[in-house]
């Protein structure tokens, strides 16, 4: 069972790193998605700050969760974030159906639809699995291993950022109004 629990934990951590990196790369787009759920008079600076805060929270949570598997509170934080995804997906489906959610920045063109709710529920379910206790020997990492994992987390985030930037630049020239 440890394999399943730890697989869910590592998988979610990497997912957060990719999502956070891609969101930072497409901050204007993600700000637009955040604006859908904010009061219409809210200043743009605040919306942008909120979008940046959400993206960096995902990055920080992903990195910390990956490098510190024995910290139980991180599992709960990831679970709370997963529940937040379900709530946002539900609200998006009800209020802004088929609008782009920018969940992975420019890496994907996911929209607020029924599939998005299903995906968010799967993420929350994985977070529940990840919160299950594993044997201490399985999650005991030395300082070197933690630092290496943090380095790998940074590489994955930068890779996601770069990929999202490149894809956004390519799409910028061929945005489909007709689609």
């Amino acid at each position, binding site marked *: 069972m440890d394999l399943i629990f730890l697989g869910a934990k*590592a998988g979610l951590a990497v997912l957060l790193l990719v999502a956070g990196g891609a969101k930072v790369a497409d901050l204007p787009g993600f700000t637009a998605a955040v604006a859908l759920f904010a009061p219409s008079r809210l200043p743009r600076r605040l919306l942008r700050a909120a979008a940046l805060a959400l993206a960096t929270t995902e990055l920080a949570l992903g990195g910390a969760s990956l490098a510190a598997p024995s910290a139980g509170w991180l599992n709960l934080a990831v679970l709370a974030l997963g529940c937040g995804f379900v709530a946002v997906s539900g609200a998006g489906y009800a209020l802004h159906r088929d609008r782009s959610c920018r969940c992975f920045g420019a890496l994907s063109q996911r929209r607020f639809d029924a599939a998005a709710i299903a995906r968010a529920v799967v993420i929350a379910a994985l977070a529940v699995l990840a919160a299950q206790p594993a044997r201490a020997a399985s999650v005991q990492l030395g300082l070197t291993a933690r630092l290496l994992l943090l380095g790998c987390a940074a590489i994955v985030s930068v890779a996601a950022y770069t990929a999202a930037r490149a894809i956004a630049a390519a799409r910028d020239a061929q945005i489909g109004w007709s689609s």
Partner: protein
Amino acid sequence: MIRVPLYLAVAQWALLLALGVLVVLMYRQLGRVLSRDAKRPQLGPAAGSRAVTLPYTRAGDDHEHYFVPGDGRPALLAFVDPTCPSCEELVTVLGTAQDAGELSGLRVLLLVSDPPAYLDISAAFRATKLEIGRPSDRDALAAYRASGTPLLVAIDGAGLVRAAASVIRRAEVQAFARACLLPDPLAVLPGPPLPRASHAPAADGHLHSTEHAGESEAAR
């Protein structure tokens, strides 16, 4: 013998998988970019074709309005999006040209596909005094072939498309404005009717004639 904690092994595989997915995504995008020229759809309506009536909702107003070409007033239609940096440039340039009186006599309409809330994220869109609308009829919108943004369409007073292209520079906007104001060549040429020719302005403002096969974009 070195014992690797189970979590470390699992995390390494997860990281490797993520990097692999990102590499595949990048190569897919690279493939699309390299083959884009062959598949690229035409941007904008054909010059010389007749522009179609376009219903739209005005920003901050739920009522439906209509852009009716051929009512005697030339028009510049700009298909733009607040999340597209080049579109912001075009909106700024259009505003500057409008303030300088370079677009006098023309109707200028910015058309966005995003919901009104998106306008708040762009300083250029928030600051502009130009009319902003959101097309409300997909069929009419399809006739404009707005397959990419920004797209500027120049329509003369008779409702004929004089130019359509992705432009952001002021000289280009000025050329489009001049193209709107030129008389219909068929109306001024003496003699028997000639096959209609289309005209696309260059950045220097001169017109270059090209053969045009279709008469009416709306008829398609």
